[in-house]
């Protein structure tokens, strides 16, 4: 009885100190080997659960998934055509996604998704670098933000922490129309800081910009709405991602630095 009336302050202080100690030890990398062992246990379980979840979602809306896949293929085709410079390269570009041939790709399985962050089953043991990016077909999916030994965390454009410099291109024209900052607000993508003088249109493509530290011309999404007010300095566009980040189960990682 006496024990139950005792303040929990002692155990609280022990646990809080322990948390801080673990936090600091992990920050300086002292726990990486222990984490590696634990990741080996958790990653297969997470992968299994996520794959099951994805397969259930895809089964329930397979027709929509099929249409989305076809849509993505068509968008890819448009981007490929637009990036062609010579007629004799057209056929080759139609058959291959326009990604640099020197890039080496590592397939990765998605094992979790939360608030615009994707967890992957590949880590530093598979020679991934912190600057690695992920693509699905040739669509930009995200950038690695954390590297464990056997798993990693990827920040997609939908993450509230993501800020990407992007360009807007008309699929029918060469060269870009506008430039802006792609951010996420309430699970929606917005391209902000677009100058008022430029005139992006609905259905224009939004692609990565080399000035943002990413490989250029990787499609991210398309414009669905333009928000423009005369007294503002900038205009804003609402963007729909070309790929449903929560619906994919595999993607490719590449070391881009």
């Amino acid at each position, binding site marked *: 009885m006496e024990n139950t009336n005792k303040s929990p302050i002692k155990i609280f202080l022990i646990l809080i100190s322990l948390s801080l100690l673990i936090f600091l030890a992990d920050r300086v990398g002292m726990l990486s080997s222990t984490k590696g062992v*634990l990741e080996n246990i958790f990653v297969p379980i997470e992968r299994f659960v996520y794959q099951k979840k994805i397969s259930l979602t895809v089964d329930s809306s397979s027709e929509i998934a099929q249409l989305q896949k076809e849509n993505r293929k068509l968008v890819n085709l448009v981007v490929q055509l637009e990036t062609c410079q010579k007629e004799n390269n057209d056929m080759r570009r139609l058959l291959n996604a326009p990604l640099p041939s020197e890039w080496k790709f590592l397939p990765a399985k998605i094992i979790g998704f939360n608030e615009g962050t994707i967890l992957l089953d590949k880590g530093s043991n598979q020679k991934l670098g912190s600057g690695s990016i992920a693509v699905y077909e040739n669509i930009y999916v995200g950038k690695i933000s954390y590297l464990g030994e056997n798993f990693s965390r990827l920040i997609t454009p939908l993450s509230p922490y993501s800020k990407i410099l992007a360009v807007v291109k008309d699929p029918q024209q060469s060269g870009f129309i506008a430039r802006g900052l792609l951010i996420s607000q309430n699970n929606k993508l917005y391209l902000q800081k677009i100058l008022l003088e430029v005139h992006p249109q609905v259905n224009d493509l939004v692609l990565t910009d080399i000035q943002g530290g990413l490989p250029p011309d990787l499609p991210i999404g398309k414009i669905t709405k333009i928000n423009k007010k005369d007294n503002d300095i900038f205009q804003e566009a609402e963007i729909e991602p070309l790929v449903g980040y929560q619906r994919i189960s595999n993607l490719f990682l590449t070391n881009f630095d």
Partner: protein
Amino acid sequence: MNAFLIFLLFLIAWKMPEKISLILAFLSGLTIDLLSGTTLGFSSFIFTAGVFLVLQYRRKFSFSHPLILLIFFILFNFSLQLTTGSKFSLIELILFSVVIQVINLVFYQPEIRL
């Protein structure tokens, strides 16, 4: 997932022994960090501190209406949103309000102190 876990931990802290509640908060925080790839110890620190506040309230005040839990949950989530930038979902809040109401109707019996 995290919001649900926090809510569950607060519920446990409301009714279970203090020691168990704190240890559970610590361990679930560690597990969440491991699963989400955040730095180990971060969530366990936050969860343990949150549960400790609930326990302190439970000790000091006799007013133990389950709606107090909901207030704790909202305050805790707002502070998390301010410090870590994690999202505070209105749907989760509504869902937990309904759960609290059910708990209130089924289990809550006001303490009568003479």
